């Protein structure tokens, strides 16, 4: 299984949102440069569309990997007895896995939101 981060680290929480941020920045920067530098932005818009589409797919794959890993950490810890606030390493792992999973899900939704822009807007003006 592909792992993006060590099991016991806080990276798990921010892996999904960080990919969202990188994707967002990429979309913003590529659109800004494209609109400023393209000789005919209207004719070439399809290029930007493809670039952002590919970036969105890549970002979603990354988030999916982070999310799968989070689910894996969460599920492994699920064997530990269910208790809301028990003090054990397993419960801590379960919490981090679950929160990381939720954050990955949210990041995926936000990434789709941002990527969808180029389906509806096709102009630099």
């Amino acid at each position: 299984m592909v792992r993006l981060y060590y099991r016991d680290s806080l990276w798990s929480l921010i892996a999904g949102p960080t990919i969202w941020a990188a994707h967002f920045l990429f979309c913003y920067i590529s659109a800004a440069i494209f609109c400023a530098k393209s000789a005919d932005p209207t004719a070439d818009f399809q290029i930007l569309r493809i670039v952002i589409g590919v970036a969105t797919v890549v970002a979603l794959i990354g988030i999916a990997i982070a999310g799968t890993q989070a689910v894996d950490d969460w599920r492994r810890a699920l064997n530990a007895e269910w208790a809301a606030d028990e003090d054990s390493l397993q419960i801590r792992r379960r919490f981090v896995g679950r929160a990381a999973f939720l954050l990955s899900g949210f990041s995926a939704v936000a990434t789709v939101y941002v990527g969808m822009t180029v389906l509806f807007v096709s102009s630099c003006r």
Partner: protein
Amino acid sequence: MTDKTKVSSQDQEELRRKQEERLLTAWSAPKSWRYWSAVNNSEVGQWYTLTALSFLIFAGVLALIMRAQLAVPDNDLVSPDLYNQLFTLHGSVMMFLFAVPILEAVAILLLPELVGARDLPFPRLSAFGFWCFLIGGVFVCGSIFFGAAPSGGWFMYPPLSSDPAQSGIGADIWLLGLSFIEIASIAAAVELIVGVLKFRAPGMRINLIPLYAWYTLVVGGMILFAFPPLIAGDILLEVERAFDWPFFDADRGGSPLLWQHLFWIFGHPEVYIIFLPGVALIAMIVPTFAQRPVVGYSWIVLAAVGTGFLSFGLWVHHMYTTGLPSVSLGFFSAASTAVAIPTAVQIFAFIATVMFGRLVRSVPMLFAAGALAIFVLGGLSGVMVALAPFDWQAHDTYFVVAHLHYVLIGGMLFPVIAGVYYYFPFVTGKALSEKMGRIGFWLMFIGFNVAFLPMHFTGLRGMPRRVYTYPEGLGWDWLNLISTLGAFTLAAGFAAIVIDIFRPKGKQPYCQRNPWNAGTLEWLEEIPDQPWGVRSIPIVQHRYPLWDDPDFIGKVDRGEFYLPDAEELRRETMVTSVLDAEPIQCLRVPGPSFLPMITAVFTGAAFIAATFHLYWPTLAAGILAFASLIFWLWTGTAEIPEKEEKDVGLGLSLPLYRSGPHSVGWWAMFITMLGDAAAFASLIFAYFFYWTIHSDFPGSPTGAWALFCYGIGIAAVLGAWALTFASRRWNAAGAVSASRLAIIAAIVLALASGAALLAAPYIDGLDPRLHAYPAIVWILVLWTVAHIGIGVVMLGYCLARSLAGRLTPRYDIDICNVALYWHFAAINGALAPMLVALFPLAV
């Protein structure tokens, strides 16, 4: 009972009394005039909170004057220029001197108690931050009494703010006075992040920390990446005003839009920097008055972290009307609507907590409920203005004024007052009046809605914000009058609360301990308060330890946990690991000192003198500030303990000194340098921004000699970095002389690098006053050289420490932290020259 056990219990009693005496000696605040040298989080937190509340009252009065002016059409209560100063100062003070500082203040006050620590990691740094805040704040606020307040709006758009002739001294006061406070905010962020990550009581794993601490962690991270772009913008704007470098002057290749980008990259996260600590207070209050654990803990963590990230992708929604490509607007519109998801998640979690609990009615809960109601309305109008086509109609009208006040007053003022009522017994041992609270709440709640709800309609009817008056008959008259009546009602409610806070409470009895029957650690506090914070540092096994174990308070009081004593009469607390809070160090934190105040006074003097372009006094004050800082560091940090380890109780012995990634200083350096890197990235952003808007940017290609100089500069800075790294290694290995020689060589190389980097643009004949291109090149080079210069000072400091025997192979905090600094300095030192040298050749 036998005689023997009686004697031993008497002994126990005696021991406990002795321990308390020693703790008291170590932790008591200094008396009489020396009181102002206090650095403990409870004193500094209280000063900070009261100062921020005074600024709130000041800015509120400014708002009332504005509302009086707008009550009727064609009013002439204030002049147009004074009106400009009023709204600029109102916005700036509320944002920079109240909203952000109050939440830092509350965090400084609460955080150590919430996580079971005795103090914050860097008490003197908090004190320094407070004094900076006080000096800078009084300076900025005072300007209006001389008719010299800033008048360009709280976001200071150039060209309105960049022409010294038009804007007068006010813009300089804003730029320098507030930059000074922004630096204090970053200091507080570093303090709070390290506090949450490393200062939690043993056993308090990351899933057990109070939600307030989660929010504080997220907000600290946000401050770290949001404030530096503004500081970078402030530097550019002040340099344009003082030295005529045309960063924002369109005639000479600059762009006013660059300021808007830099300002709002700060300004939008700022909204959440203000809002999240407000919700954090609600997250503490709601479970207490529902008498059950919060519902959806991990969902709320999702909301906090998710909002923190998304808030950085919203800044352009303040710039929808500036003519950016519509596809770009689309990205920001998408992110702006997406941020409603995590925001709503936490609100549902609170509602669920109340639903599943047994609600106890109280004033804090009333304010919390009012806050949510108001905030939800503000959030909904926020989704409206997040949609670009709607925003094009509403932009710069009173609709936006209404929206932002709903967000800020619902998201932060009401929660703060809820927090004041909730935590007043925690701070003073006495409760506020239930009756006054209710009167205050209803006046404020009704007054607020009467004042701001009509503004939506005034705005939709076309009234622009920031106009000092308006003619009658446009349909705005009675709406404005109603708003003014509402504003004064709101102020009356607030006055009731201020009276309740300041009324003498000498005869009122102390309230009982843990008066709200809360479950979190801060309510361990004894009433009246003892200066040591917690009697012994507990082992935490539950999110609500006071509910989990009925005798928890007793165990802490009897000193049955860690550090129940201060044998050496030193202030001590525990450092634990990030994820699972395993004890790793017994840290001695510094006690009272006037040094933070003195350093802040000199730093303030330097900034204030610079405002008036008095450069010799600036230099003099700067040197004094530097000297007091070095004295402070030399005498107060990286102290070598008299023994290796200390018995902290319960059979645990912990080291008193740790360096590298195990020390809190290393973490502070790392976090500070992340913020510094964010400022550097903002300058790089500026460079590329110019490239996207100008076909003739960059100017002429770099000349051969300049290229050579840049090359030398990069090679030398990397050499200095490698030698610093080697020096650290050699020192640790015991090769002290080699380590010292490496430091000297690193200093020589760094100086050579600085000289070569300064020579390069000079040889190229770049004049920063002619065009934005040479100006941005010079700024990048100067930024880099300044960082190399700071690195040289640090290396010199390490050399001196080594020679003085304060830096040894075993005790090497200083060189570890300096080596960490140099990693960042080397990245900066290599990247910036490469960019300015090679980019003009590449395009």
